[in-house]
């Protein structure tokens, strides 16, 4: 069937009027055991903050389960799995969540714990997709098929969140020497 899919357009500079949800950054409630903040900045090709961006996250719970019928065989969960945060004037965002459990790849191979990230902003015509991995999962990261598909270790490291004060830090560089790896999903 030939596609008649609706094309993407930029979310523009004013997305925050609609995309800012009071509970958006809270993938889990603040009282959750093991909750971590993922904090970062969205930066452009000359290192300037992107103050009009939107970061969204999607992930499994600590047991690798999703609140979705396609993953029902892995067990039920009420875990929302979704986070949303608009960037502030310094390009900063934060998401409170838990480190996900292992989730298989397309061929059933194990993958390292990861969070899928979407990036929207003025100047981004089509959603950018990246993945966040965790620094302290070194062995799992070394075996992860997606990370292994990226030859350059410096590029691979753009996907790895660093341990921070109250969780992890993960800056997203849209362009430039430190450009984050983006995926065609």
């Amino acid at each position, binding site marked *: *069937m030939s596609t008649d899919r609706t094309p993407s357009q930029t979310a523009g500079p004013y*997305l925050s009027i609609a*995309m800012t949800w009071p509970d958006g950054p809270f993938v889990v409630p603040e009282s959750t055991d093991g909750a971590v903040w993922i904090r970062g900045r969205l930066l452009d090709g000359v290192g300037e903050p992107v103050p009009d961006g939107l970061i969204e996250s999607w992930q499994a719970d600590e047991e690798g389960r999703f609140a979705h019928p396609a993953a029902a065989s892995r067990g039920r969960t009420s875990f929302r799995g979704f986070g949303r945060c608009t960037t502030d004037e310094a390009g900063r965002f934060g998401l409170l969540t838990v480190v996900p459990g292992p989730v298989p790849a397309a061929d059933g191979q194990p993958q390292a714990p990861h969070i899928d990230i979407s990036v929207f902003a*003025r100047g981004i015509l089509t959603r950018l997709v990246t993945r966040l991995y965790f620094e302290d999962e070194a062995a799992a990261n070394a075996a992860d098929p997606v990370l292994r598909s990226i030859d350059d270790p410096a590029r691979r490291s753009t996907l790895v969140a660093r341990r921070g004060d109250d969780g992890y830090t993960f800056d997203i560089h849209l362009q430039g020497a430190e450009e984050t790896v983006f995926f065609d999903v």
Partner: protein
Amino acid sequence: MADGRLHPYRRDVGVDPPNRFPAYVGTHFRAPARPPILLPQGLTELTGPLLGPGRVEPGDADLTTHGPGQPIGERVIVHGQVLDSDGRAIRDSLVEIWQANAAGRYRHQEDVHDAPLDPNFAGVGRALTDHTGAYRFVTIKPGPYPWRNHQNAWRPSHIHFSLFGEAFPQRLITQMYFPGDPLFGQDPILNAIADPQGRERLISRLDLGSSIPDIALAFRFDIVLRGRVATPFETEDDD
């Protein structure tokens, strides 16, 4: 999906605009320089947030009732159906919109266009699709507004749409336009879509049959998200 087989979502080459598009100045420092890397769809990508029930309050879909009085401008109904490209309805799914007011001004602190705010119009709406994928908003036709992309640049009237679909690859943010807008030709955002038929799919059409006589014209905007490939993904449960 009860059979433990999951169908990946098709990659439709050439439908979406490229992120590097020089005529749209905002892309210059924000478009990645390197091509994206293929991400095989695993369970994280074959699932996604099912946002809908609980996210929409009564009245959210009528943007003309969010202030103390009636907003200024041309009242319109904007409605349509959310489907995937195999024709399946996307049910019980959140549709979010935001837009400028009739004067072409957003209620956003960074919008400094010298046009009035409307105390009766915030320009933000939410709706749920029904069992046929249908959604419906009542709003005000947004005005065009100038921006600094190039000399005397004006955005055509548009409404921003945000959709989730049923899985992560279907996530879409786009814009809906109104038919016959004379500003289409000079707009680099719409024209970043190479295929003329793709651009057409962002232009709503006048739908007199759904209008309310003496009250509001209707415009129809159907939204088609990514469909699936025929070959299933074998889960570990198939063993």
